[in-house]
């Protein structure tokens, strides 16, 4: 690939050279006046219009508020910007003009980052949600994805694991893909595919979420899952601002799963087996000493589970240089013993004004993260699941003081303490991003922007499994991964206004990104010296090693036109072409068009004078975007190496075998999206609302399917079928009460999404790969043509056979007290043909409500977030109620088991030997929840106290996160999912690290 990039470089040189030459000609042809437009606070105004009075000549300010225009000394410039009072200035002998616009209180004014540039809010035709740092200022956030949760319609953010440092699953308007990546594209300051975990939330100035095809179409082949644009802070004020922010959070297990006591469990085991597995003496002893509370053994709370988050930043502006420098330290101990997350991050954003026409910026972000024991969600071999399943009759520690390894009647081989303390999985990641950008107004109405970026990430995964977690094979491993990402982007933009009524901008972009990845891993098996952990892998019986590399690249061309007629009728059109190395030649190129129309009805004569409605805009868009979310070399036929076997009694020799089916016909997923919406503002812009309806159809869906195991136990990646996502989104924001002393602001958002499989290629249904959660029968999720996505499969419970149903039960080989299943196909047998849909893991709708009450110096924030209508298969409840035979029957439901005298129950008789199923509708629970995500009270120290000091402001806050969750779900947390980032395995809970409850004390000081 190197050779090609050299070739490319020559292409580029030509491109840049040609652009500059053209600019050079333009400059020679014109005499120009430049200037800068700022607001009263001294902040630059991008996108302001500059006209020469009486002519059609005009210009627009760039991102930094600068403009250039050719004018005669007698010309009068008219400077206007929505939301500000229009100003007139005579040019005279000035060549550089500074203009300060006064805010026009009656109008909304906002510039929105839309990708490869900015746009005025009023001009936007796409569906874009914006968040500013103020929106989440009252919520203590350590991981940036939490800032998105519950705040924007159409954006579903689920903390599928509560482990410290874990990133939430973000879905914008549902998941288009089935088994492949549906994460949105993260773009930080123009750098595509940036790391969202490495980002310090305190550095965020604003976040824009691009949802419809017109907005995300700018990102073509990477846009179909939506795009999250993050703009980081920059210095604005002439006096430097030093800000110190510190949060101390104590964390708690959200609730406790009701389990049998040790004595109760011993009695249940005796009844189940009809034997004396536990003697009366033992049971009496349990009654006295209570047995083991496994939750207490593996969870910690309060200051033992402290989360600290400290930030220090300096920002300001000095002459032609502005700067923002910050440092961040997070230390999260987590509620689970032996798990934690740490991050240290620094950022410097520095911008220079080389000349009025040429600006340069340089951003550096470095972060260093450590995550310990935060993975492991879909397996029962994790402490959370083990604590639910383990018998309270088993002591937590043995006579030697070490955690117990194994215990009777507990369902899994290794005890919660042995897993929690015996397993050490450390992930060290450091991440550096360099971002150089240049902005050159090289000719009248023409500008050139260059972004060059490199991201280097080094991850080191060091694991140590001692003899507690694995009696027979303690092992340690070290895995190193070097990741490098390069990007260069060239944007040429032309902006002009004709006859005052026609505003036109045209943008051409050339961009390339490529990624190089190199990994290696060494494992020592059968450690001979456990004290040395992973620090000396040679102290092992044997070693395994591996290494590998991938390289991939995308080259893109983009053209975008924006046109506005009389600021009323708006048109945006984009075409992007992408070429990806991940696909073979014939499928390498793809073109993604989009078009959007906007009509600002409020500008029409019949509404323009309205005292009630200030802004009313109708929007419609259609377009196509893509998803190339597969791994490099996916379409490449490969062989599996390093398959070890022995034929001589002692020497391991390594073989080579087929890696699975190859598919050189692999190509992009394409999503066509229609969006119709409106934005409205009324009562002097006190209330704003927006509504969108969308329908997305993804074709050539990238799908990892599991063919039958008899084909060799492999999976296959194919393009098959079509998925439809549709739904609507509603957002209402406003100031409900606005008195001198008391103010109540509220923001409500609501959205629905329904995903349906329209076709699945040649199949009527598929079982996507990866649904075999341990503890389950592996039935997983079935995707069926014409059906909703996320359908959980299983047997339908019909209660328990009663004493009066001896004959009926006998048909199924059952007896009274046995579990009764619906015989769906009526063949008088319960077989795999009776498996059907027993629930759906996708929510019907989600909503969020953020309230801010301000009374004098006190601010109260109440943020509620909710998911409604999703089902969860509580696998642990199944496993603790007899699915494992006599193992791990620790559920309190066991006390309500069927007996001849207690027939009104769904819990089968303890003595029942009839096979029970984990995928059983009786273990399906409603996952609906309403969560008080954040309640915070902040107090600003009165200015009068601080007047005599060097301190500008001091804010103290006390807040609680996840304080109440209203739900019927019986597990720890209805938000978590064993499927993690999966699009299809929704609603499986095998015992996932729950989201903690927490209390935070915050201090914010500005100097």
């Amino acid at each position: 690939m190197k050779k090609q990039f050299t070739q490319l470089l020559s292409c580029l040189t030509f491109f840049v050279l040609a652009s500059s030459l053209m600019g050079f000609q333009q400059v020679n042809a014109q005499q120009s006046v430049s200037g800068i437009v700022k607001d009263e606070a001294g902040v630059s105004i991008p996108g302001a219009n500059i006209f020469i009075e009486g002519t059609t000549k005009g210009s627009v300010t760039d991102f930094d508020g600068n403009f250039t225009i050719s004018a005669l000394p007698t010309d009068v410039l008219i400077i206007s910007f929505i939301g500000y009072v229009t100003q007139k200035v005579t040019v005279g002998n000035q060549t550089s003009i500074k203009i300060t616009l006064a805010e026009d209180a009656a109008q909304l004014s906002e510039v929105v980052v839309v990708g490869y540039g900015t746009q005025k809010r009023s001009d936007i035709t796409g569906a874009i949600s914006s968040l500013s740092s103020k929106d989440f200022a009252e919520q203590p956030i350590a991981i940036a994805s939490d800032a998105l949760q519950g705040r924007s319609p159409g954006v579903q953010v689920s903390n599928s694991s509560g482990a410290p440092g874990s990133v939430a699953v973000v879905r914008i308007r549902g998941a288009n893909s089935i088994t492949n990546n549906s994460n949105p594209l993260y773009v930080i300051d123009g750098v595509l595919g940036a790391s969202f975990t490495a980002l310090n939330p305190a550095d965020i100035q604003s976040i824009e979420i691009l949802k419809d095809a017109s907005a995300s179409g700018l990102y073509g082949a990477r846009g179909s899952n939506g795009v999250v644009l993050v703009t980081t802070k920059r210095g604005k004020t002439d006096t430097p601002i030093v800000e110190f922010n510190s949060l101390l959070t104590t964390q708690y297990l959200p609730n406790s799963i009701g389990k049998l006591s040790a004595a109760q469990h011993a009695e249940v085991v005796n009844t189940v087996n009809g034997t004396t597995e536990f003697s009366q003496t033992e049971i009496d002893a349990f009654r006295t000493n209570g047995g083991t509370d496994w939750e207490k053994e593996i969870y910690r709370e309060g200051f033992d589970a402290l989360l600290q988050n400290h930030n220090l930043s300096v920002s300001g502006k000095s002459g032609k240089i502005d700067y923002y420098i910050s440092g961040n330290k997070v230390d999260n101990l987590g509620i689970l013993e032996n798990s934690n997350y740490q991050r240290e991050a620094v950022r410097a954003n520095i911008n220079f004004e080389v000349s009025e026409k040429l600006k340069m910026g340089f951003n550096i972000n470095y972060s260093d993260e450590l995550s310990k024991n935060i993975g492991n969600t879909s397996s029962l071999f994790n402490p959370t699941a083990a604590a639910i399943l383990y018998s309270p009759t088993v002591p937590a520690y043995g006579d030697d003081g070490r955690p117990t390894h194994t215990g009777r009647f507990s369902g899994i081989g290794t005890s919660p303490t042995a897993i929690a303390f015996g397993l050490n999985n450390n992930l060290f990641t450091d991440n550096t991003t360099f971002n150089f950008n240049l902005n050159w107004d090289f000719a009248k109405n023409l500008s050139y922007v260059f972004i060059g970026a490199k991201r280097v990430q080094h991850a080191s995964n060091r694991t140590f499994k001692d003899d507690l977690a694995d009696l027979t094979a303690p092992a340690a491993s070290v895995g190193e991964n070097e990741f490098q990402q390069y990007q260069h982007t060239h944007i040429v933009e032309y902006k002009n206004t004709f006859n005052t009524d026609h505003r036109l901008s045209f943008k051409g972009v050339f961009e390339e990104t490529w990624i190089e990845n190199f990994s290696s891993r060494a494992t020592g098996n059968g450690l001979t010296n456990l004290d040395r952990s992973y620090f000396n892998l040679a102290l092992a019986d044997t070693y395994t090693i591996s290494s590998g590399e991938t390289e991939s690249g995308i080259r893109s061309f983009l053209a975008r036109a924006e046109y506005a007629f009389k600021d009323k009728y708006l048109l945006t059109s984009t075409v992007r072409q992408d070429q990806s190395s991940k696909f073979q030649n014939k499928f390498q190129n793809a073109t993604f068009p989009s078009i959007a129309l906007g009509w600002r009805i409020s500008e029409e004569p019949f509404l323009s004078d309205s005292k009630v409605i200030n802004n009313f805009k109708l929007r419609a868009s259609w377009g196509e975007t893509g998803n190339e979310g597969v791994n490099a070399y996916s379409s490449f036929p490969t062989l599996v190496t390093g398959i070890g076997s022995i034929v001589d009694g002692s020497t391991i020799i390594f073989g080579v075998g087929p890696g699975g089916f190859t598919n050189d016909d692999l190509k992009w997923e394409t999503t066509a999206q229609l969006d119709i919406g409106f934005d409205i503002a009324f009562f002097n812009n006190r209330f704003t609302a927006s509504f969108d309806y969308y329908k997305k159809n993804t074709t050539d869906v990238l799908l990892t399917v599991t063919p039958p195991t008899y084909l060799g136990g492999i999976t296959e990646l194919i393009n098959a079928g079509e998925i439809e996502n549709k739904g609507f989104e509603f957002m209402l924001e406003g100031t409900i009460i606005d008195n001198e002393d008391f103010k109540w602001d509220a923001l409500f958002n609501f959205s629905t999404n329904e995903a349906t499989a329209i076709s699945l290629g040649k199949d009527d249904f598929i079982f996507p790969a990866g649904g075999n959660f341990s503890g389950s029968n592996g039935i997983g999720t079935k995707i069926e043509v014409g059906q909703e996505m996320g359908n959980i499969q299983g047997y339908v419970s019909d209660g328990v056979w009663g004493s009066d149903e001896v004959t009926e039960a006998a048909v199924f080989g059952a007896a009274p007290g046995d579990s009764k299943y619906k015989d769906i196909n009526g063949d008088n047998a319960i077989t795999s043909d009776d498996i059907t849909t027993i629930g759906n893991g996708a929510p019907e709708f989600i909503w969020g409500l953020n309230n801010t009450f301000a009374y004098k110096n006190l601010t109260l924030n109440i943020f509620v977030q909710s998911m409604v209508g999703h089902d969860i298969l509580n696998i642990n409840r199944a496993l603790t109620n007899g699915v494992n035979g006599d193992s791990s029957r620790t559920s309190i439901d066991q006390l309500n088991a069927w007996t001849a005298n207690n027939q009104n129950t769904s819990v089968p008789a303890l003595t029942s030997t009839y096979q029970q199923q984990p995928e059983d509708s009786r273990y399906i629970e409603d996952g609906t929840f309403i969560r008080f995500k954040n309640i915070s009270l902040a107090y600003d120290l009165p200015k009068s106290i601080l007047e005599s000091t060097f301190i500008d402001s001091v804010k103290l806050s006390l807040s609680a996160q996840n304080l109440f969750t209203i739900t019927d779900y019986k597990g720890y947390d209805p938000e978590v999912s064993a499927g993690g980032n999966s699009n299809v395995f929704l609603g499986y809970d095998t015992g996932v690290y729950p989201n903690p409850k927490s209390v935070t004390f915050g201090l914010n000081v500005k100097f």
Partner: protein
Amino acid sequence: MKKYLLIIILSSAFGCTTLEEEPKGLLTPSSFYENQTDLDAGVTAIYRPYMDFFLNAQGSIPTLGGDDVTTRLGSNKEDYREFDRFQTTAGNGWLLQHGWGHLYRTVFFANAVISNYTKTPEGTAREQAAAQAFFLRGWAYFQLVRTWGPVPLVISDVTTGEEPRSPESEVYEQVITDLEFAISNLPPNWTGEPGRPSAWAAKLMLAKVYLTTAGWPLKNTANYAKAAELAKDVIDNSGHSLMPTFRDLWLVENDNNIESVLAVQADNGGDWGLSNRMPLSVGAPDDDSGNGWDDYFAEIAFFNEFPEGPRKDDTFKTSFAEGTLTWEQTIQGNPYYSKLTGYSLPQNWQNSLNPYVLRFADALLMYAEAQNKADGGPNAAAYEALNEVRRRAAGVNDNSVDVSGLSSDEFHNTVIAEAGWEFAGEWHRWYNLVRNEMVAEATAKRITDDRELPLVGVSVGDPESAFQKFYYAPIPLNEMLLRPDWQQNPCCN
């Protein structure tokens, strides 16, 4: 202006080549198998799932219906219990992973070699490499067909995913073809590499296939003679013979001994997955040292009937916790299979003991059974074969434990019983019972009080017809969901 821009963009697009992947670290199949080294690497891969099958106790799961083995209450042993209690379900995860999965992965790797080996230059080395693939595929299908009955027959690296379940007769035909290729092309022995099958191993495997097809369900009785002929050839000409004492068979230092016709080459020094984990799985109960997994152990009635002698002493562990507990006093209350551990407990919970795939005693007892059935009565060689095994079991060199003068049926029953004891816990018993339709007879002796797990799907004393539906294991649920056109086996239909 737009025109100029367009030109620039277009020209830069025009001037640049496309992005092409050049994986630096990956091997690609198109150029593989073209030389002997590649082909040998392809063959090496096939051994892995075959070894996985034997080195995990879970490979035994479908044989738990036999009267030689049972399992415990509780723990994670439900997948074993289902078979022991005749309550099998398609959802049995270990059956899918360790049985069906490992066997079809063997087939998958073997097919890659069989479909491509002709790319390699001709020669003995090439034919011997291919012959190993044929042997292993034949073994895998034999294991599949006698466990599940009709199974999909995939015999090349091109598959459709639409394969039907081929009837037993077709699967056996393929097994025989594969093993015949192996017999013709494998060497009589592999110097220094006893883990590879010799032509003798292929012959003895084929003898076992013929013996099986002569019984239930095909009952192709003409195959008894073929089985007898092959087994006799191995007895007379292979150079293999019995180890002098039964205990010697199970010592790690005697791996690949004279009796071993084919054994999986376990090694505890390397990859944990290639060590023999039977000591952990079946070696000892919890209350001995706290480490045992109790995957399976001996049924009490079977143990009681087992003839006394050195073979019994060296098959079972009956005293635990440094002699403080008898087997009746342990939590499980059953004897354990010490032979499978290489008597390495409590020092080594996994070891390098090579599990036998085929051993000389197998040739003797197969010959005895097949000859008697083929000719309607045992000849002198059959008596001698049976008595050889009995003498060693009793630890005698004279004819004091020999049998003689039996009717054909008596002789048959004696051989089947002898094989049960000789190969107790070695995953043979169930298949012997099924092909001879003797499951009910064996199960009738099971203890019905709470010393053993109670049966669920059948009752002690039920006729053979009640057990027939359990002859075949359920097709794993995963496959049934993907192939709803298949008919599930009678157990779970």
